[in-house]
């Protein structure tokens, strides 16, 4: 650790990190939600088909 850092609360840098992390997560979750929606759409269709076949 740099000597100068000993006088600084290392937690203070975590604010910037959270902004960066939140931006990365925003992108990741956006695409994940699309993926989940697509999967849900097709599984719903398949379930409907299954239901039709069963009935």
């Amino acid at each position: 650790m740099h000597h100068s850092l000993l006088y600084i609360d290392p937690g203070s840098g975590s604010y910037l990190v959270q902004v960066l992390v939140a931006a990365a997560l925003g992108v990741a979750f956006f695409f994940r939600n699309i993926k989940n929606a697509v999967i849900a759409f097709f599984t719903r269709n398949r379930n409907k088909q299954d239901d039709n076949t069963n009935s």
Partner: protein
Amino acid sequence: MSNSIERNPASYRDPSGFIFEKDGVLYRQVNNYFKEDFDLFIQSGLYDKLVNQQLLIPHQTIHDCISGDENAYLTILPEKINFISYAWEWSFDMLKDAALLTLRLAKESIQFGLSLKDATPHNIQWHKGKLIFIDSLSFEKYNEKNPWIAYRQFCENFLSPLLIMHHSKLTLNQLQLAWPDGIPLEVAAKLLPAKTKYSFHTFLHIHLHAKVSNKAAGKRQKDLQFSRRKFLNLLQSLEMVIRRLKSPSTATQWADYYKEATNRNGYIEEKKKIIQHWLSLNPSLKSAADLGSNEGYFSLCLSEHKIETLSADIDPNCINQLYLKIKQEKINNIQPIIFDFSNPSPAIGVDNKERERFTDRLNTELVISLALLHHLAIGKNIPFEKLASYFSKIAPLLIIEFISKEDEKVQILLKQKRDIFSNYTQTLFEKEFSTFFKIIDKQEIGLSGRTLYFMKRNEE
């Protein structure tokens, strides 16, 4: 009036209030400084919801100023915790559940317009069969523009040790004793295998966090805007990493002990009968500690007798198995902890008073110690005299098993070392323990050649 209160040595960091003891009762004072936040916490309904869900310790509100301190807004009387334990005494899944509890509280708080301002295992304790949050002053008014103030604390206190254990050894929970305020991110980043850099969420919360926060520390971070969505994403991401972590499934030294021991001509059953007989002669017993409990077979026996039992063992895997059993079967009177008889948790922190040593925290009527003595006396070379002296500090009543040198298991211990244990005899054991205890009863355990003793401490 103020002279008769004793402020808790661990309660000095937070200006919101503090814990103190008066006439043997623990209270928490809420300071005027924290009035608005505390009122919001109660009036928003968050307190009721968390207590109803058994996530937070319930308290009674006392409007009188008990401490006599002019900063007092009000005083609360939380339900009593039987035995304070620390994260370095918890098993993997206990720490994991404590982490998930913290994230759940952070998430619930936001729905009520509050934010969890602390994320440390010291705010979580074992109460009535589960881990529960105990710091009612950790909830402050939420400002949507602010990031999570406890983010780094969470990563260092929960995520770092869990990831290190997950990728390496369960015994590394002991790192938390070296860094009781959390394993620094740069240390965790160095200790974790390089492959963790390619795990998206771990990269963000540990590796990137360690790198960027050190560079950014102390620089003015103006106009950093956050939002509720971002806050929730952050919590969700942390939860995803933690849920995926598993206790490394290494077969530890003592796993499957009972499977093997039960096969020895009803040895375990015989032992249980003798103990149950002694317990039935002492129906008023309310508390016990089972030291060297393995997966807690005899702790469960004590629990069936409605005795609050601390179940302690050196093996983190056994204690983890016991914890999972307690959780699954909702057993509410056994508390599992990791404990090394030859090295009990020390007193640490400011003035060595912040976190008490094991010996001072333990307050029990009965100690049982089964098939442990030979490991200490022969495995660790601890003389009977020292063992008897330590037991006398913690055990008003003692049930202890003596296993002679001729025993098959002791022979295995002796194979690995030179036999310098000419003093390891039953006569000497009785003599040394009689210095501190009165032997009330002793019984041979079936045909095993082993003996159980029931002793009572000599009161001065």
